[in-house]
């Protein structure tokens, strides 16, 4: 690598700045303000929308392709028992343990 120590540290500082600003500015400007009711409703759907948007590719894709073949994509199959356990028990620890266990077993068997 051709970067000097100072260049890497500068890179880290720049990255820190552009990561922090989008995290902070909305909170700074919106938190003490009475929001428009429409905007409030819209924002109330953001958590579900973001969570599933992050999950989609993680569950349906593996190694850059769309696949649910168990040997390539254990994540999709482990999601099924995880989903069931979350729905039935409402317990995050059991869900995480189930998911991890399912992936471990799939890797062992398939």
């Amino acid at each position, binding site marked *: *690598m*051709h*970067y000097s120590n100072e260049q*890497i*540290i*500068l*890179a*880290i*500082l*720049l*990255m820190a700045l*552009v*990561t*922090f600003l*989008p*995290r*902070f500015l*909305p*909170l*700074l400007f*919106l*938190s003490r303000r009475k*929001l428009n009711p429409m905007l409030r*409703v*819209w*924002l*109330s*759907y*953001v*958590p*579900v*929308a*973001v*969570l*599933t*948007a*992050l*999950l*989609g*590719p*993680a*569950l349906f*894709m593996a190694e850059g392709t*769309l696949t649910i073949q168990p040997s390539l994509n*254990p994540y999709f199959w*482990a*999601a099924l028992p995880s*989903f069931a356990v*979350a729905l039935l028990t409402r317990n*995050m*620890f059991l*869900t*995480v343990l*189930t*998911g*991890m*266990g399912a*992936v*471990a077993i799939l*890797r062992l068997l398939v």
Partner: protein
Amino acid sequence: MHDGIFRRKFTGLFLFNKEEMIRGFFKGFPVILGYFPIGFAFGILATNVGMTVFHTFLMSLMVYAGSAQLIAVGLLESQVGLLTLTITTFLVNLRHLLMSAALSPSLGHLSRLQQALFSYELTDETFAVHSIDFNKEKKTPKCRIFVTNILAHLSWIVSSILGAWTGSLLSDLEAWGLDYALPAMFIALLVFQLRTMRHFFIATISLLLSTYLFWGMGGHWYVIITTLITATIGLIMEKWYLNHNTPDIENGES
């Protein structure tokens, strides 16, 4: 009296409620667990492209963004300029705008400094656990919020340093399925949020749309585009639902 004010301010910022500290720990536990394999992977890759252990530590301390850090390592390996690196990082992390906005109505009780500290440690995962908590309880105790955030951040820093030092444990972690801790946590948090059929519908659309967009165009815009579209569909559905189901009292004359 002066002492009393000082104490109140101090406990307001810091964390002396034992019960809330324990709740904060348990709230953050899946995140703490889930960051380990990813932080490890980052540490290994970072040293492989020539970053020192100190650089790895500094990046995990100051940037604290999993996907952006992993991408940065790839970019440094291909010798890009700092401007490219900065712009890419900005674009990858732009999705946090939406998360910060979504949490903002619940964080009015924090001081500006506390809000800055909270934002500094706002990640996909801490966002997910907080959004559940804030839904259940307005004005969530600061103690619980910051214990979760600080422990998650510590886990990220420690695991990336360990990865940079040892660089070999990763396959063992995968054999235990530890890399699935975060997806499984997301599944649990998602299920807890499905309060109405509308939420279920929105989740299904978002799951399919994000997969389609990522498959079709790759990159990092898929999260933001999917969120903008599906939250808007949610808003339209809710307005429509309220227009057709509002009790007469609230509708006034109608």
